[in-house]
């Protein structure tokens, strides 16, 4: 059972994730997409904006799905915890060190995600702002990585290709230009 706690290679993980698309269709003709849950949550919390005026209860399967993701994260990250740091390309490790980030923190860099970092106002703001861009961008683009880069591309939808290209352009700009600057400011 050691495989349950060891990292899985891409050729195992990718197909497993891909199978969720037909799985959700078979269960109830549902489209694999995760960021919609954020909209349903706003609607369920009682926002009065027109954008959130719809029958969110008819979409509550999506909330059950993301609750399941939290559970799966608990099983994999707590019950089947793997203490080993993520094995990175040495070049990446070098770049991390240049920015003052540790490469041996485990699953996430402690400088950004530890309690100490989260309770520091600048660290809190960094994560909040990153999350804000994710939520705002996902709704503007009508989907995130699961809905566009996986479901949309697999069904050959042109809008999803545009969105996926956008995801990568934004990510490249963030990782190469904004992140080093933000980390300098964070310290």
């Amino acid at each position, binding site marked *: 059972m050691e495989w349950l706690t060891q990292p*899985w290679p891409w050729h195992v*993980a*990718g*197909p497993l*994730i*891909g*199978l969720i698309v037909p*799985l*959700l269709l*078979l*269960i*109830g003709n*549902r*489209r694999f997409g995760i*960021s*919609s*849950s*954020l909209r349903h949550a706003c609607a369920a919390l009682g*926002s009065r904006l027109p954008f959130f005026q719809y029958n969110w209860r*008819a979409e*509550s*399967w999506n909330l*059950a*799905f993301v609750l399941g*993701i939290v*559970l*799966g*994260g608990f099983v*994999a*990250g707590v019950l089947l915890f793997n203490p080993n740091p993520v094995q990175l390309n040495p070049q990446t490790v070098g770049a991390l060190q240049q920015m003052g980030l540790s*490469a041996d923190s485990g699953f*996430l860099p402690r400088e*950004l*995600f530890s309690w100490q970092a989260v309770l520091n106002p600048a660290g809190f703001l960094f994560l909040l*702002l990153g*999350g*804000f861009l*994710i*939520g*705002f*961008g*996902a709704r*503007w683009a*009508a*989907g995130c990585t*699961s809905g566009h880069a996986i*479901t949309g591309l*697999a*069904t*050959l939808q042109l809008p*999803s290709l*545009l*969105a996926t290209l*956008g995801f990568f352009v*934004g*990510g490249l*700009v*963030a990782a190469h230009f*904004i992140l080093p600057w*933000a980390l300098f400011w964070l310290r």
Partner: protein
Amino acid sequence: MALSNRDELRVQTQVGSGSGSSLLTYLPYLLAGAFFGLVAIRSEIASWYRIYEMFRFESFHMYGVIGSAVLTALLSLWLLQRLGIRSRNGEPLRVRPADPGPYRYRYVLGGVVFGLGWGLVGACPGPIYALLGSGYAGAAVILLGALLGTYVYGLVQQRLPH
């Protein structure tokens, strides 16, 4: 361009079975989600490090995961449709478009904004939930930000180009 609610959800709410109130209706989705969460952590796609490595083009891992996921979804859908297999509720399998509207800008512009966040905090929505379950406090802050971002989009939607 005014959206007048002609967006993603219009079609979505028409497709799929009526909402049952039974907890059993939700159990399959809960289990499918748990499966995804487990894979997201074990494959390390929820690791900030893997995302950073991907954007530096220093590992094939993320490209392999996304590429093989797309290929698997594409082939399995083709096979299921060819075999004439229907959904549990009897409907033919159908993947609606993300948005039925004639929009183009929204995907590029919204995509870039999303990507900026993805590149900074190294998690897309699925992994945010998985990390939350793994007990990372930072994930709760990201989720709070994502909810705020979703809400503010709803606030300014009509003023954005789509």
